[in-house]
């Protein structure tokens, strides 16, 4: 304190206060600022080295797997994983990623008490939630989408059928990207909702992992039921198999383990309801938080 009150005080005096006469941007720009801030936070950019370790470790592993897959395919001609099964295989890493990053995005703000500073500005609960959700979904999508692009580049350069082969490969990549986006959106909405319940990051992370972990055995049990309808619908019980189910419904060659038969639309409806439900609950939660 003492150094603040002494000699420097006269310096402040001389500079004088300047009024701001420049442009003030609207809510769209504010949304963008929170979104970019969220993506940077997800990958620990602008944070300490400690905050960077985890996201880049996960990203590194996922990327390494993609490089190996691409290399094996180009050298030995064996397709270990296609674009969609790649995303499925990485699911546990994605879960750990959102379990760490979702609390980083929302629990942290709650814990440090900055929310009153946000909500005393021209910003609505919906803007805040929307931007955080978009940031987390983008981060997860980048986590899967970039390695998928690496696989594509690997395949495109070593194709033996020229441009036709590249086009064919692109036809596989785009649904793969869409599939990753589905992963991103479902995981982002669920994990943000859980993370928003508590200001303690460790609890939030445990809650998110638990939510995904606990539902997996339910699917296994349902798959062992004698009824074929029960088997077809088993995937609805867990977010991961839910996404897998939509994949096998819409994308050729995705998730052969789960046969959804004619129930594909049921998976689609559930996914939509799940995402919308999570976001609405988040909004309700933050409407309340914003007024405190």
């Amino acid at each position: 304190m003492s150094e603040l009150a002494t000699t420097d005080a006269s310096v402040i005096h001389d500079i004088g206060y300047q009024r701001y006469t420049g442009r003030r941007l609207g809510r769209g720009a504010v949304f963008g600022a929170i979104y970019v801030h969220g993506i940077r936070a997800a990958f620990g950019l602008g944070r300490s080295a400690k905050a960077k370790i985890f996201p880049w470790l996960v990203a590194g592993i996922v990327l390494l797997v993609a490089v190996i897959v691409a290399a094996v395919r180009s050298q030995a001609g064996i397709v270990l994983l296609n674009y969609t099964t790649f995303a499925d295989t990485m699911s546990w890493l994605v879960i750990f990623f959102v379990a760490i990053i979702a609390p980083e995005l929302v629990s942290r703000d709650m814990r440090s008490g900055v929310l009153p500073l946000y909500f005393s500005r021209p910003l609505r609960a919906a803007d805040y939630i929307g931007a955080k959700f978009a940031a987390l979904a983008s981060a997860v999508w980048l986590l899967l989408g970039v390695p998928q692009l690496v696989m594509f580049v690997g395949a495109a350069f070593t194709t033996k059928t020229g441009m036709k082969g590249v086009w064919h490969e692109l036809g596989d990549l785009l649904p793969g990207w869409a599939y990753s986006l589905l992963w991103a959106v479902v995981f982002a909405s669920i994990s943000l909702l859980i993370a928003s319940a508590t200001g303690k990051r460790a609890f939030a992370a445990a809650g998110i992992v638990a939510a995904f972990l606990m539902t997996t055995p339910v699917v296994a049990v349902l798959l062992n039921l004698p009824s074929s309808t029960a088997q077809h619908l088993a995937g609805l019980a867990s977010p991961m198999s839910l996404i897998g189910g939509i994949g096998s419904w819409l994308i050729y060659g995705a998730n052969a383990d789960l046969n959804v038969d004619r129930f594909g639309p049921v998976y689609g409806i559930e996914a939509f309801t799940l995402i919308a439900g999570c976001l609405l609950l988040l909004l309700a939660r933050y409407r309340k938080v914003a007024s405190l």
Partner: protein
Amino acid sequence: MSIIATQNLTKTYGGRVTALADLTVAVEPGVIGLVGANGAGKSTFIKIMLGLIAPTGGSVRVFDLDPTVETDQVRARVGYMPENDSLPPDVSASEFVTHLGRISGLPRTAARERASEALRHVGLYEERYRQIGGYSTGMKQRVKLAQALVHDPDLLLLDEPTNGMDPAGRDSMLALVQRIGTEFGISVVVCSHLLGEVEQICDSLIAIEGGRLLRADRISAMTTASDVLAVEVSEGTEELASALKELGLDVTVEGRLLLVPMDSEVTYDRILQAVADLDLPLHRLDQRRHRVAELFAQRETADV
């Protein structure tokens, strides 16, 4: 022109707890003290002005805008410093204030410039690049003030700005608030439960108790014609008292102090002359406003 005007403003929580009852005030620009005990309704009043909560009854207008309807316009012109700890520990003050500047709608470069300027105005220089977690309470309060200033508001709402600070820190924070009100041309509402603290820096004062308005007026109106000079000499207090009485001054003795009502500028000189004539060691001679607290005390006893 009033910057804040309320008409029978009422806020009840769940129909049972009354936070504000029938509050009617009109606030002129300047430094305004909002005083009351804890739970008197100060924070509720601030939250209503920010459009964070809607009043149960009555109306409030800030810059002639309704905060519950024209929330964004009001908030763009108002800076808010909350009472509680509200800073993330693991970012630098510079980054944090820049980010909040952008949340207020400033473009990227403007946000960065204004953030470092706001931090400089509150007295944070090189330390603004360090993580907030390592700051002292006083520095944290300064960061909170800087984030309220970053978007160049026309009105600052400061909720207990000296909370948790040591006496020296309090004084410099109050001096800073006063400078913002006078030199920066920004009106400031300072919430405090310590009347003695805000009365030094405020132009006007709103006192609330149990959600009701106790008194709202300009400080000058509250303290007119009540200035006294306090004289303290190391020895010979009684001699001086009698000497001053002979000069026709109405002296009252208060412990070691002599209180002399200041009728005109010459009172100073007459006291000094008397001290010099008696050759007494003068300890202090200062002008003392009647404490606003005394006015409230008088009023309260009058009410009873």
